[in-house]
């Protein structure tokens, strides 16, 4: 069982990313994924998060998550917004970070003591492929680079979520981010 949280700010498509990831796992990998709603803070620009539990067998738990196997952070300024991510991680928790800067990725790794940090400039990829700074699809590609889900499943789930036309460019953003993700 893997417990994962997507952090971002309202407008980055955090909730859509969680749903898309759960479709990728549940429908395209014959696994099970449950999204746990983080309700009440859907405001553009404000910090938001979405939780997902993924497993290869039916999931019993239906509650908030307290110890995460992985985190995805779609906005690298989160570190300055007093979001306490430390209490939800253990020494093995991995991080997938959207940043254009290697030094910011290093800062996250050292400040929060992540064993593995995967980073990519997902916003740039989103602008290039979909013409908008909405990094969610690209970040799902980066998440696939951790090995937790196959990039092909992510691409299929994106096409299902976004429909034919938007699905194609979002899937391209995911595929490119998957290839460009750096692990430190």
């Amino acid at each position, binding site marked *: 069982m893997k417990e994962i949280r997507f952090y971002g700010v309202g407008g980055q498509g955090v909730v859509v990313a969680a749903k898309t990831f759960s479709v990728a796992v549940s429908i395209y990998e014959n696994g099970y994924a449950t999204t746990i709603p983080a*309700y009440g803070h859907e405001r553009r620009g404000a910090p938001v998060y979405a939780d997902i539990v993924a497993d290869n067998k039916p999931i019993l738990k239906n509650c*908030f998550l307290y110890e995460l196997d992985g985190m995805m952070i779609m906005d690298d300024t989160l570190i300055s917004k007093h979001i306490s991510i430390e209490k939800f991680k253990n020494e093995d928790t991995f991080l997938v970070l959207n940043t254009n800067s290697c030094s910011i990725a290093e800062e996250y790794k050292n400040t929060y003591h992540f064993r593995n940090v995967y980073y990519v400039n997902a916003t740039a990829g989103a602008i290039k492929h979909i013409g908008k700074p909405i990094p969610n699809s690209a970040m799902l590609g980066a998440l696939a680079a951790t090995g937790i889900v196959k990039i092909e499943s992510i691409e299929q789930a994106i096409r299902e979520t976004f429909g034919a036309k938007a699905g194609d460019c979002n899937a391209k953003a995911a595929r490119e981010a998957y290839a460009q993700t750096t692990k430190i």
Partner: protein
Amino acid sequence: MTYKMMDGNLAAVEAMKMAKVQVVSAYPITPQSNIAEKLSDLVASGELKAEYIRVESEHSALSVATTAQLAGVRAATATASNGLALMHEVLGMTSGNRVPIVMPVVNRGVAAPWTLWCEHGDAMAERDMGWMQFYCENVQEVFDLILMAYKAAEDKDVLTPAMVCLDGFFLSHSMQKIVVPKQELVDNFIGGYKSQNTYLDTEDPMFICDLTGSEEYTEMKYQQKVAMDNAIGVIEQVQREFEERFGRKYSIVEGYRTEDADVVLVALGSMCGTGKHVVNKLREKGKKVGLAKVTVFRPFPAEKIREILSGTRCIGVFDRSAGIGGQGGPVWSEVCAAMKDISCDIRNYTGGLGGRDVSPDNIEKIFDELLEISQGKRKNHTAWIDLKENAMDIRQVIKNV
């Protein structure tokens, strides 16, 4: 088998659509809103051939649904929280006139304090209004229990409406993987709708809901009581038939690893999933704990409760509603009454109010307390299991004191 990803609200809509409801009158309220919205979309697109009647309140929503169903169709509505409270008067009209409506209730606390979030206080406040109440553990159960509720409610020996209760946000907004059967299978299971006993037909006029004197009122209430008594057997039969047709097994009360358990926690709703998870974890540590999941709360399955709990000397009951002024929560009271002739220690736990998480840690804490009590190492239990230490300081206004 076809799997789909759905949240609890969409699963409820899917089930009502497949039951071919022909009149919809729903008033949106968080966290039920997308049931009302999605039904509206389906009617607008023609996918659901129904009349969507816009109403100005939940009181009207259930009034319209009840009278529409009397005219001979399945009618749909759904609500939550204060919306259910506003329906209170009409709930009695529906059940007393023996109209077997099936209504999803998305559980949310009733104000005040204002809350949007999950607890069972809204449905528990209506537990004596003559409606059956089913509680769902997960999104698959939302879909399945709605289908079973139609079949049980419309049975000639029952003719009693049913609430299918799903936890606000924990189920209504949680995407989960579910099996959606083919329409043909659903048609064969629940069939078409036909009004029985009471109906509105211009060719055959009938006076319904007239003033009833004391010479008949008691007997009509007794008929409702007998219908509820009948419902236990009918629901069990419907569950067996559901399993034969759809392959998923249900019980009015599910005993989960209770056979050899030293202590058992009784619970209902989405917390049962987390409860089972904790049971498995503690079993690995050698602690003999079990969970009894109450799927049907009205009619209360007392005999089944006795069957599952009779070998257990120490029992906890988790109420996700405050039961203010009672000796304990409503589920605890019912369990105590069911077990009154059996020697056992039944402890009341209250928690998970207004969206507070029923966490694995808190459930584990309950099991540990119950184990200590059963071993004679402890006398008292923590009745308000997730209460903060500074409870009495919260929002205390010191001005003018």
